[in-house]
């Protein structure tokens, strides 16, 4: 069986997810034995920009006309499109201000000359093209990326967590930052998979992986209010990483 042809792309973003992939040092050699990496500019300038791909990994958001065209071209080239990272999955930090007046933001930041940029209101990948797999995280977790590759190689879709960060936090027998320390820890509504890295170090969850399936946002806001965090502060925190509904969310989030 020929090795599947793979491309790895970055739209507007920090390239943190591609770096996480390159940081899989112990697994990289094994990976290239199984995958034919054809187009991965961050790793190699020797690339094939037009070949058909079996799997395309795309990180970042669509923030310009150019991003949109690139994403459509990638979609047309590939069988399976994997959104890599919170930006690609739910907009992430770049989408934080997407409901603001774009022209005003550009002029405030760059002056009138900034109007030459083709900036668009930021969109997550699924708002532009169809996405087959979503690996969230800011940045992604190595083990989820590797598990995803293993599943795709076996002709399957990966089983990714749909439970909240609290699950893994409880399994690690951590002290609850919300209950015991009254911190605004977004663990109960944030998608797990990170092994509760931050709460395990005593740092409250900032929700960098986006919302868990069926997150009960209304109850969470009530609980945070009981701990003295006003509703608008909580919404702001919630919106920092996941301003774009990703289709898993309850209706109320979209109607907020």
């Amino acid at each position, binding site marked *: 069986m020929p090795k599947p042809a793979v491309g790895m792309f970055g739209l507007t973003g920090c390239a943190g997810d591609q770096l996480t992939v390159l940081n899989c040092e112990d697994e990289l050699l094994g990976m290239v034995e199984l995958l034919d990496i054809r187009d991965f500019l961050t790793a190699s300038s020797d690339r094939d920009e037009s070949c058909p791909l079996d799997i395309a990994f795309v990180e970042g958001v669509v923030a310009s006309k150019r991003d949109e065209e690139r994403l459509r071209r990638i979609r047309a080239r590939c069988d399976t499109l994997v959104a890599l990272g919170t930006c690609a999955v739910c907009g992430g930090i770049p989408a934080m201000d997407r409901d603001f007046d774009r022209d005003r933001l550009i002029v405030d930041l760059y002056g009138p000359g900034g109007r030459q940029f083709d900036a668009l209101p930021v969109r997550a990948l699924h708002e532009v093209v169809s996405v087959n797999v979503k690996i969230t995280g800011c940045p992604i977790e190595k083990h989820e990326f590797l598990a995803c590759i293993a599943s795709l190689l076996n002709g399957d879709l990966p089983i990714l967590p*749909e439970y*909240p960060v609290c*699950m893994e936090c409880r399994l690690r027998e951590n*002290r609850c930052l919300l209950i015991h320390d009254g911190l605004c820890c977004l663990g109960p509504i944030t998608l797990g998979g990170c092994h509760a890295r931050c709460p395990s170090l005593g740092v409250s969850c900032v929700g960098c992986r986006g919302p868990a399936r069926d997150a*009960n946002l*209304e*109850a969470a806001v009530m*609980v945070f209010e009981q701990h003295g965090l006003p509703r608008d502060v909580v919404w702001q925190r919630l919106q920092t990483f996941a301003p774009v509904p990703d289709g898993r969310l309850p209706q109320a989030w979209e109607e907020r």
Partner: protein
Amino acid sequence: MRPDDALSIAREDLPEWLALLGTRAQMIAPTSGPHGDVFYSPVSSPDEILWEFENSLQPPKRFLLPQTDPLVKIHSDGGRFHLEPVCDDRRQILVNLRSCDLKGLLYLERVHTYDLPDPSYLRRSENRSLVSLACTEPCPPGFCICCDAGPFLRHGFDLQMTMLSDRMFVEVGSDKGRSLLEGAESMFRPATPDEIAKREALEAAARDHFKTETCHFGSAMRRISTGRVAEELWEAMGDWCLECGGCTLICPTCYCFSVKDRRVDEGWVRCRTWDSCQYAAFTLEASGHNPRPGRKDRMKRRFFHKVSAQYYQRDGDVGCVGCGRCIKVCMGTTNMPAVVEAIRKGEWHG
């Protein structure tokens, strides 16, 4: 209590006895962790063991039902797959278990014995000895007395210890318990009538601590078993659940699991891993259909399992030991006593 089942040992002899036990099996005991939190963990010396402590937030169930429990090794020699069961034959002695937690382990034992016995669980359970420390001062959120799970136990333990002023009162509950005394006979002597009276007085005082009962399972059971709990009530309670899964993960009687294969060396190991019935993905089927799609459906399921007469008949007890952990971990308000109260009264006020 038969006379030869009631013994006592001088408090200053305890470390020597426990050190002796430590040479025969791994000792699991409450220890002090960061922030002064209590954890059940392996100890290498009796000095690490806590004797006066607030119960740990995590029950000691993971020593019987590990978070990731390897069940079967799978390997392939080309065309054929070979299966080989995994056995945990390590001997462990769990010391200073609280009555509620020991009762929780008995519940799990019945669940894994009923209908299709679970060899993996039962093999592990055979190799564990359970030594409890009766609660002379019940803990604040606990309501064990409502579930017949404390503060003192009548049976089920291998050994039950009660702290008297200068001696430790030890009750033998099984042959396994008696074997823990082998080699230390000289340290133990039959309890005197005075010691037995003291122990009875301590139990009576501990029971008195609870005043009126706090969790009326009986009347809730009647309602839930006969379908007299309105859907709207589940919906109202579901609105207060953050679906963090905390209550199920710290519950001494919860055992919902998922199954995952793990790649190990040249083969795989099929593992049972902890899961929670409160997560939507728990019952999500491959087709995308979910028989319990709403939070209310999952909450209803959880409490039906815990409190209904149908399960009471199967498991021989309510699925709660009154440890009060769900009261401590629930970020919302849907802990066991609150929900039982709501079912009983048919109303919920958040």
